[in-house]
């Protein structure tokens, strides 16, 4: 939790949520954490994609964060591709942190910059918005 507290910007985020199998029970939907780091791995999988990134702490220590993301079919609707996130890419994202205070978060349609650019197209339909999974 200390890592997240020192790194993150908390914002009240009034999200209505009918999330993926228990997403609302695992992540704090009232908080948003901004993480900046380097991609170590991206899993493009059903029913959940997952992003892992190294985030440098103020102490100089590097901590690996795990981020739950939408399924490929929903990410495609939002304009993402399976190659959008590659090892070594610089990423910045807003995630809901885990309620347990671990270095985990959820980014279901959240703000995500890859090497400074937003790869999403704001796709409509099935993938639109949060909690549609």
């Amino acid at each position, binding site marked *: 939790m200390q890592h997240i507290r020192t790194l993150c910007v908390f914002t009240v985020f009034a999200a209505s949520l009918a999330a993926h*199998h*228990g997403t609302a*029970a695992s992540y704090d939907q009232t908080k948003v954490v901004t993480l900046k780091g380097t991609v170590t791995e991206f899993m493009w999988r*059903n029913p959940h994609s997952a992003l892992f990134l190294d985030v440098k702490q103020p102490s100089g220590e590097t901590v690996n964060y795990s981020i*739950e993301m939408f399924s490929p*079919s929903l990410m495609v609707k939002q304009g993402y591709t399976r190659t959008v996130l590659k090892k070594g890419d610089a990423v910045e994202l807003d995630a809901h942190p885990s309620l347990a205070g*671990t270095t985990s978060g959820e980014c279901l349609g959240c703000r995500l910059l890859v090497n400074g650019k937003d790869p999403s197209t704001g796709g409509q339909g*099935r993938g639109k918005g949060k909690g549609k999974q």
Partner: protein
Amino acid sequence: MLRLAIAFALCLPAFAQTPDFSGSWTKGGGGGASTAKNATQWGGEVPSYTPEGLARFNSNKPGKGPRQIPPANGNDPMGEANPPGLYRTLIYNRPFEFVQTNGKVVQLFEWAKVWRNIWTDGRPVPEDVAAGPYWYGYSVGKWDGDTLVIETLSVDDRAWMDEWGTSFSSDAKFTERWKKTGADRLEMTLTVNDPATFTKPWTSAPQTYNRLKGEEVLEMIFAPMDEKIFNQRIRNPAAGK
């Protein structure tokens, strides 16, 4: 002339148009808003459980709904990529396709990429299904005017009826009533007759399904190997485990 009129009248049923449900559909509204502890994701009246039914319901620890806990601390069968089963599939917002043929209506589900036969060839609803129970049950349908009435039995009770952990017994009898409420909208109401679980037949709120336009039914398979990795690297850490 009278004979002709009588003959025409007798033949009318043969020319009656069966509603056409063909096409791809995705879940719209209906149900899911209640915060009552024993409520179902299907909406409708909060079920009145028998002691046996309540014990089974309480033993289910879902990651969603009024009783939600972090999935890593629950026992959702889907957490290990078991089949969702028929009714959980019908309440979840993943598309499916209806295909109507002579003798059966088929549902092709994106979730788990499975199909379901609904026999409309006039066969009776069996008393039992020798090889059952099945995760997707055994279904016989008949047209009642504009409504497709489906009777289903022999559903494997290890499946949950929804994501909120609603339970049923393997002796449960399910009745779905599907009808079109617009060119691009279907409505379905589910009734469950399961004396082992509910003190009286329970009926859901009407569920709506909208025509899926400009998209195809895709594939959504929960592969055990993926779910295992997800549990180890995402779901468990998120719960501090």
